[in-house]
């Protein structure tokens, strides 16, 4: 193509002062005549401002269907009579954001490649002319194939931008127009894109900072955002983490962007077509794009099952009658735990159906159905979270090792590692052995290999020094009552901890202590190591000492590490996070039970009301789960997976409460239908042990966390708007009055829509967010109040 041959050799090249009269040497951005240049094939041209290669449409889940194309920013000539130098608004209407498949570019391909490789902050000085993109900006078919599109940036309402996640997904972008159209999701294959590779290298060279937006790794989507920001305002929503609004109206700002600007007058009339749609509807409409990828169908079916379980033909009629007929209800009381039995049985059926349907893949018809029916917010959220569930492969050592430079320093962000582990877990074996040490803060995230080698060696020395403190002083200490009690306690607990796990099973050496109750039975080397480690912890943390439950928490760590000194420090890291659980006065456990109480109050007021009527709002039935982080509820392998997920603190340091909430939510129908007393609830929950599906629980917990996050935002916004203040309102306890509280259940949709439409009157009955709840959004480890723990220690010893 001859059009640009002279001027593209070097992007910084400046044309000579007085060139020939050639059209092709135009160097002025505001030049009006470029559109008059005749393109060989079309007779018309537009100016290519930016382009990005290897942006794909994935029409199906199969890689071979992927279509490679270019994302481009194009400038068309202003309509006649309008000066292009006028307002930025008119400029925005002349600038088109387009995606065009490589196959449709023809001769222009070279130009797209060239522009892609121009690495400059502003558009090229030269005008690169290309054929106009498809005329329409609807999602309909165009001459260039079904997926190509171009939309004036002024017509973009919002974009859903999902940054890439190593080993999991490509970064992607979905554009939603003001008229409500969604364009196909575009996937940035950065590893194939020459310009993105070059740009991230350049960034690393120039600033030593390989990170783009939000501290994530730089990726192709960042570039698109940068282009757009030259022409329009792009605001990142604080409410919807992946949502970016283009030239948002005030309503949109109030609804989506940030609470710091809620004191804008929200009653001013709407000004754009986009705002005419209820913003929440819009979010969910937008969220649907996630469904276009393969999904597992999780909630909806189960909910339906659980609710209609009693009408199911599978239920023997006599059982149905027993449960439903009010006259027979009394009868149930004649059978001990009849309700419990039936409740468990009903749940068993639901679980089974769910497992069968978990594998079900969305078809187009499902999506159509979904569009026609009322899809609850929760289902959407959960499906969105569940998306890619199949791709959640555990992190392998091989993948992990690739993330290090030659000094053994991590080259990806901590958040990326955590994200990866949070969603995929870690492969068993060597990978866990290594990565757990990072998650448990034994290794600093910015350490080099040499530093880690030195560190582990000094930690090893330190462990043996600590161990020596009691080991070398054994005789004297045995006369100390407190120490002897602790030793006996450890002895008893270790001999009954995870003995079904191979390394702790059996006795093959004689017991070294004749006074032990197990002296006859014998012991094994791993049990002895466990005892030593726990006694050493007793030495290390003198304030707390050994407390029952700790042996349960050490066993998996030791089993994975099989190295006492290393496992000890990993255990110390775990205890840093859970120290609150073991305080003498139990204040830490109380605080967590209270937080769970508030959480259920906010998230599921109906269930909460039921628990209240069942005298169960002390939430004591979650005590065991919270104390040892579900150790007794899940199978061994699941415990390892769950713990590594929790250790990331990826969404919250209190994420275990969302696991609890997910378990509760899973069983809410049964609890509400069948359980009426504290003892029944406790028994039912205790007996969930070993029946809980971890994968489903994790998906549900994530959805619930996101819902919680939104609810907090919405409640804050609503209250702030009602009070005409710019800040969220904090109260010590959530407002207890939950009259008509079903609305609180759907606050995220209901109330913010009301706010945005300006119909929200001052209505103070809604829930407010307690401090206990707000803390659940924090990723900081919660430590015991130092005054409380020292008081506790004072009384814990004779």
């Amino acid at each position, binding site marked *: 193509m001859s059009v640009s041959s002279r001027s593209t050799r070097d992007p910084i090249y400046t044309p000579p002062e007085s060139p020939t009269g050639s059209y092709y040497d135009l160097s002025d951005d505001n030049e009006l005549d470029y559109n008059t240049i005749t393109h060989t094939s079309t007779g018309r041209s537009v100016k290519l401002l930016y382009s990005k290669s290897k942006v794909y449409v994935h029409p199906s889940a199969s890689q071979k269907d992927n279509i490679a194309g270019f994302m481009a920013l194009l400038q068309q000539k202003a309509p006649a009579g309008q000066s292009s130098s006028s307002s930025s608004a008119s400029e925005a209407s002349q600038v088109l954001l387009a995606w065009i498949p490589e196959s449709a570019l023809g001769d222009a391909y070279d130009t797209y490649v060239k522009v892609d490789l121009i690495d400059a902050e502003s558009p090229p000085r030269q005008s690169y002319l290309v054929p106009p993109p498809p005329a329409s900006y609807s999602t309909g078919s165009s001459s260039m194939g079904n997926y190509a599109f171009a939309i004036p940036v002024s017509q973009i309402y919002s974009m859903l931008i999902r940054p890439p996640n190593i080993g999991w997904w490509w970064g992607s972008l979905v554009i939603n127009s003001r008229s409500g159209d969604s364009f196909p999701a575009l996937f940035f294959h950065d590893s194939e894109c020459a310009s993105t590779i070059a740009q991230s290298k350049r960034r690393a060279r120039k600033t030593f900072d390989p990170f783009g937006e939000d501290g994530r790794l730089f990726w192709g989507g960042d570039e698109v955002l940068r282009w757009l920001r030259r022409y329009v305002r792009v605001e990142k929503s604080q409410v919807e983490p992946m949502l970016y609004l283009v030239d948002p109206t005030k309503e949109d700002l109030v609804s989506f962007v940030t609470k710091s600007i809620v004191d804008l007058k929200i009653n001013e009339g709407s000004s754009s077509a986009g705002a005419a749609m209820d913003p929440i509807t819009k979010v969910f409409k937008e969220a649907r794009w996630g469904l276009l990828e393969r999904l597992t169908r999780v909630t909806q079916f189960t909910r339906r099952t659980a609710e209609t379980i009693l009408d199911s033909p599978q239920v023997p009629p006599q059982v149905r009658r027993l449960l439903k007929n009010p006259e027979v209800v009394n009868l149930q009381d004649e059978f001990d735990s009849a309700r419990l039995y039936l409740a468990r049985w009903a749940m068993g059926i639901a679980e089974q159906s769910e497992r069968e349907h978990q594998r079900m893949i969305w078809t187009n018809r499902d999506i159509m159905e979904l569009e026609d029916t009322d899809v609850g917010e929760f289902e959407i959220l959960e499906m969105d979270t569940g998306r890619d569930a199949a791709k959640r492969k555990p992190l392998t050592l091989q993948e992990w090792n690739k993330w290090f430079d030659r000094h053994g320093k991590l080259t990806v962000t901590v958040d990326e590692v955590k994200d990866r582990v949070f969603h995929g877990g870690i492969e068993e074996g060597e990978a866990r052995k290594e990565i757990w040490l990072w998650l448990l803060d034994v290794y600093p995230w910015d350490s080099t290999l040499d530093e880690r080698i030195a560190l582990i060696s000094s930690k090893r020395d330190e462990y043996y020094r600590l161990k020596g403190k009691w080991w070398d002083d054994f005789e004297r200490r045995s006369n100390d009552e407190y120490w002897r009690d602790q030793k006996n306690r450890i002895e008893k607990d270790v001999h*009954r901890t995870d003995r079904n796990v191979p390394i702790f099973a059996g006795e093959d050496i004689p017991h070294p202590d004749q006074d032990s109750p197990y002296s006859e039975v014998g012991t094994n080397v791993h049990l002895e190591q466990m005892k030593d480690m726990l006694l050493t912890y007793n030495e290390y943390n003198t304030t707390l000492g050994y407390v029952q439950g700790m042996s349960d928490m050490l066993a998996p760590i030791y089993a994975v590490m099989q190295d006492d000194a290393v496992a000890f420090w990993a255990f110390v890291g775990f205890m840093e996070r859970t120290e609150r659980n073991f305080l003498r006065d139990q204040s830490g456990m109380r605080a967590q039970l209270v937080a769970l109480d508030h959480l259920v109050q906010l998230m599921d007021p109906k269930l909460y009301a039921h628990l209240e009527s069942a005298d169960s709002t002390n939430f004591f039935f979650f005590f065991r789960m919270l104390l040892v982080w579900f150790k007794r509820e899940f199978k061994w392998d699941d415990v390892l997976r769950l713990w590594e997920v929790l250790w990331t603190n990826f969404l919250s340091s209190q994420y275990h409460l969302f696991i609890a909430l997910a378990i509760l939510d899973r069983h809410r129908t049964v609890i509400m239908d069948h359980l009426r007393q504290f003892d029944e609830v406790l028994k039912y929950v205790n007996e969930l042990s070993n029946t809980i599906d971890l994968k489903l629980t994790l998906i549900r917990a994530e959805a619930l966390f996101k819902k919680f996050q939104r609810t907090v935002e919405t409640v804050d916004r609503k209250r702030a708007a009602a009070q005409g203040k710019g800040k969220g309102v904090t109260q010590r306890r959530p407002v207890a009055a939950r009259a008509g509280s079903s609305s609180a259940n759907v606050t995220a949709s209901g109330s913010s829509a009301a706010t945005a439409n300006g119909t929200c009157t001052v209505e103070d009955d809604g829930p407010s967010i307690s401090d206990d709840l707000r803390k659940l959004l924090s990723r900081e480890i919660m430590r015991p109040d130092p005054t409380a723990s020292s008081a506790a220690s004072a009384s814990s010893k004779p």
Partner: protein
Amino acid sequence: MASRKKPMLKVIILGDSGVGKTSLMNQYVNKKFTTSYKATIGADFLTKEVLVDDRLVSMQLWDTAGQERFQSLGVAFYRGADCCVLVYDVNNAKSFDTLDSWRDEFLIQASPRDPDNFPFVVLGNKIDVEEKKRAISQKRAMGFCQSKGGIPYFETSAKEAVNVEQAFEIIARNALAQEESEEFTGDFQDPINIHLDNEASGCAC
């Protein structure tokens, strides 16, 4: 309404960790013994139907964690108890020494109407272990029980099912007597009786 119902007796089992609370309970209810019980965390219970003088009663046995600090949350299930079983290990002097404080702790937390006459039963467990390991003689244990107002005392082996049935028969009997005396004094607040308030807590959905 309550009178036509089968009584529900609530029994709390307390004692140091590892004395055999869970084992005793399981031996009595399920006729099973295994060495593979884990340390109890939180609380759990088992229910058993028993005949006391031709009356069918349902007995709920509450098992708790043995370490002292976990008792502070116990109020939730101490309430409405009809009998408290104190367990120690005859081979472990310390577990015997703490019986008194377990008893006090219970009375404080459960705050029964008439603490002086609240029924306790003491069980000295693990008598199957070889004699030379025995730390507390039967005589000493009985002396203690005598001094506390004549608490019934049994020496048991959960492992070999010695005296377990007999002990729980007395526990059931004393609990029933307690339940009836409470009823007699007009205590209708018993939160463990699941028969009292069907209408009040009817299904909310």
